[in-house]
């Protein structure tokens, strides 16, 4: 299986504190992996490292074929990160936000429209300023941005938080569709019951290192390199 994420002894620092203290992890294309662990374990930092936002202090880190030690910027346009922040402009409408971020990622306006429709944000809601949305609607808008960007690697940090039951079901459907289309999903979640149906593989993290991997790939994976 082609490895989309390949980490060996990867260390990331938050100031002087090692938020990741030597992570070994391989994630194959089309996989869905759930990161579990206590608060402060390093899950968010791991997602940010894979997104090319957190620098790799030492070790190996290759994501989507891009060596993050040499250049962590090149991978960014190929990943979609949904963290605790929604990355939306409050005064702009839902449609403005989704269209702007979609066009920034070289997606078409029609991709933005389709994403909004998929998330139930078309019609009246499309013209509502984000500042006036509920937390759940705001989360849906952030998901619409993610869908419109069509990333190869989805990095989700507690993605179900703030969503109602319909929203959660919708998100699960999006994740299944994305992986079926060849995208890879890594998500940090405390809701194991919720995500068990989505991800047969659960990676436990504690103290900035992988402590358990319930379904690690049996064979070493081939690491793809970007041209």
């Amino acid at each position, binding site marked *: 299986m082609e490895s989309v994420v390949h980490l060996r002894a990867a260390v990331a620092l938050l100031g002087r504190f090692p938020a990741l203290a030597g992570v070994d992890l391989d994630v194959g294309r089309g996989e869905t992996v759930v990161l579990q662990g206590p608060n402060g374990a390093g899950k968010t930092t791991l997602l940010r490292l894979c*997104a*090319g*936002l957190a620098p790799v202090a030492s070790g190996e880190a290759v994501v989507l074929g891009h060596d993050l030690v040499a250049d962590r*910027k090149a991978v*960014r*346009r190929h*990943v*979609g*990160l949904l*963290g*605790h*922040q*929604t*990355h*939306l*402009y*409050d*005064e*702009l*409408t839902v449609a*403005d936000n989704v269209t*702007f*971020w979609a*066009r*920034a*990622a*070289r997606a078409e306006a029609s991709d933005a429209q389709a994403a909004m429709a998929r998330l139930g944000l078309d019609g009246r809601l499309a013209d509502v*300023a984000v500042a006036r949305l509920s937390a759940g609607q705001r989360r849906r808008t952030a998901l619409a941005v993610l869908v419109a960007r069509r990333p190869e690697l989805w990095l989700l940090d507690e993605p179900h938080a703030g969503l109602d039951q319909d929203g959660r079901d919708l998100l699960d459907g999006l994740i299944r569709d994305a992986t079926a289309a060849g995208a890879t999903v890594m998500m940090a979640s405390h809701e194991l019951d919720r995500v068990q149906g989505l991800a047969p593989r659960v990676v436990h993290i504690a103290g900035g290192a992988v402590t358990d991997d319930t379904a690690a790939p049996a064979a070493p994976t081939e690491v793809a390199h970007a041209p």
Partner: protein
Amino acid sequence: MLRDAALVAGKDLRLEWRSRVATNQVAPFAILVLILFAFALDPDRGILERATAGLYWVTVLFAALLALSRAFSIEAADGNRDALRLSGLDPAGIFLGKAAAVAVVLLALEVLLLVGVIVLYNADVHGIGLLAATCVAATAGLAATGSLYGVLAAGLRVRETLLPLLLLPVAAPVLIGATRAFEDAFSGTTGEGWSWCVLLAIFALIYTVFGVLAFGPLLEES
């Protein structure tokens, strides 16, 4: 790069159109400053008239600080700076787009303030061409330097107070040059107004090139 610049400028101007911060807050503030100068200097009308050009550009500079602070605070909110890094947008395009949007807002303010000084300070405008060229060149310089220092300060908690400290010394040449050019335009003399205007254009060009090159690393580190 230019496509990204247009995209970012369009987004910032749409944001301004929807929030009306420039029209409802920055413009009234600038007019208020002009009025306060008039109150302070009114006992000697001659000083007010002689100082019109300088007071005009000091007011523009204050208004620019507000506009720039606003332009970069929206990127600091809700993790949008991370989103910009992840977006795939060319950093140079982001710089040009943000500077262009700030420049459009400032030019509109400058027109309003020009009407203000004509009404409040009895300023006579003789050289419209020189005024217009000075406004464009000085605004380009302010927008370029402001966008450069704006992103530098944006990632810091003290950005609201740091930006004026960083920007005002750097913008001093704009204040001097634009004031000299405006003095000629107001008096109708054929002095060195156009020379100052050319100097402003060179200043703007240098900082625009510098911004195109430096904005990426600054966005990364801020």
